[in-house]
């Protein structure tokens, strides 16, 4: 008897004493089950919330860019009629890229489509404005391009957001959630660019043109390709063919066509082609740092790069690059002091490259690549 009683008492004691322990176990057990069964659903819920917040930000940004463009067309461009409807049509205009299943000759086709689009943009902007100041027209083009990009970004993010929600696809949503901070950063850079463009301030991308404009100042300039000018000058016995887009308009010009013309049509036999351009820095790298290299230093869709590489390869001319590091934000907004002050050092590097890689009596092509807004020659 006594032994039975003592056992049951012991059991009771255990039960009451460790009730909290059991509760703990039950709690964590439940948590485990919830996590197991509803974990992804919970994560999806958080992802949806976060994406929708980001999407809202993108919507505000693209609306602001659109409004900025319209305001500029009306206030500075003195558009006759209300340009709102035309601008909205513009934002949804599509450029259909050529088919790439038969890649031979593809670059020429891309060039054709892109050139057609650029001409159409300029013609449309020209017809909207009640003046033909080329700076104003080029700024309007750029503002509309920024607004179009932001419109596209917003549309694509919204597409995947709605698709993920509709199909309850955890992975679509989580991927989008992870990309969101980078997308917002890029959109923010674009929106900031509109401020610099409206003011006509040189942007970070214009560092190449800034450097070569010093070589062109006071020399006779001639148009060598669409929106692109060239001057012939001399440095320590070398004949320099210096080119950049025609500033102070917000042009990037056609350096590829220009270099092809110099090498093939003008019969110039350069012993080097030196290109100066802005380059995206990696996180942690300093803004305004200078890097040297070989190859065609030019961004964009690839047409210009192809043309330059082809011209250089055909004529067996080495391509040298001088790059100024900057972030995407710094490249498309007003030029930072660190970048502007790199101009002197870039000029020194350029002189050294010319001295080291060529001899007296040689011909050298120097190209300043980038947007020449606010940088004349």
């Amino acid at each position, binding site marked *: 008897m006594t032994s039975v009683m003592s056992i049951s008492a012991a059991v009771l004691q255990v039960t009451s004493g460790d009730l909290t322990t059991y509760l703990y176990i039950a709690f964590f057990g439940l948590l485990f089950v919830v996590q197991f069964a509803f974990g992804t659903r919970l994560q999806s819920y958080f992802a949806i919330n976060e994406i929708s917040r980001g999407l809202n930000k993108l919507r505000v940004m693209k609306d602001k860019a659109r409004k900025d463009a319209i305001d500029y067309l009306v206030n500075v461009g003195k558009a006759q009629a209300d340009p709102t409807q035309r601008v909205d049509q513009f934002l949804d205009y599509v450029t259909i890229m050529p088919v790439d299943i038969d890649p031979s000759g593809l670059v020429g086709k891309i060039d054709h489509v892109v050139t057609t689009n650029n001409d159409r943009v300029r013609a449309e902007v020209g017809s909207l404005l009640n003046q033909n100041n080329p700076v104003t027209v080029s700024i309007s083009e750029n503002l509309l391009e920024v607004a179009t990009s932001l419109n596209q970004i917003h549309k694509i993010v919204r597409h995947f957001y709605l698709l993920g929600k509709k199909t309850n696809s955890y992975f679509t949503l989580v991927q989008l959630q992870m990309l969101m*901070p980078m997308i917002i*950063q890029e959109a*923010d850079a674009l*929106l900031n660019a509109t401020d610099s463009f409206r003011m*006509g301030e040189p942007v970070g991308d214009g560092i190449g043109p800034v450097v070569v*404009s010093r070589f062109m*100042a006071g020399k006779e300039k001639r148009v060598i390709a669409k929106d692109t000018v060239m001057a012939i000058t001399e440095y320590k016995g070398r004949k320099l063919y210096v080119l950049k887009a025609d*500033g102070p308009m917000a042009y990037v010009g056609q350096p590829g066509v220009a270099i092809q013309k110099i090498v093939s049509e003008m019969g110039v036999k350069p012993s080097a082609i030196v290109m100066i351009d802005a380059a995206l820095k990696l996180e942690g790298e300093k803004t305004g740092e200078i890097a040297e290299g070989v190859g065609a230093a030019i961004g964009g869709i690839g047409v210009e790069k192809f043309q330059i590489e082809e011209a250089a390869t055909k004529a067996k001319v080495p391509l040298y690059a001088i790059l100024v590091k900057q972030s995407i934000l710094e490249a498309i907004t*007003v030029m*930072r002091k660190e970048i502007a002050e790199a101009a002197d050092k870039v000029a020194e590097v350029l002189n050294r490259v010319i001295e080291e890689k060529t001899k007296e009596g040689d011909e050298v092509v120097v190209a300043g690549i980038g947007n020449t807004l606010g940088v004349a020659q």
Partner: protein
Amino acid sequence: MMSSVPGADRKSKLLVYTIEECPVCGQKTKRAFTVGDYITKEASKCPKCSNTARVSLVYAESAKQSG
């Protein structure tokens, strides 16, 4: 997993300056940027030798830096 979308990167306010340089004596003057300024544009007379200066640089620095 619950990383949050950062707000639009709040940078310190940027002030934009135009640097005028005299091609003869190299005298540099720094003034606030005005719309219509561009690099190589003819600017005011050089305070030292009264030759016509030209805009040599346009750049921005943060308000904090310039004091």
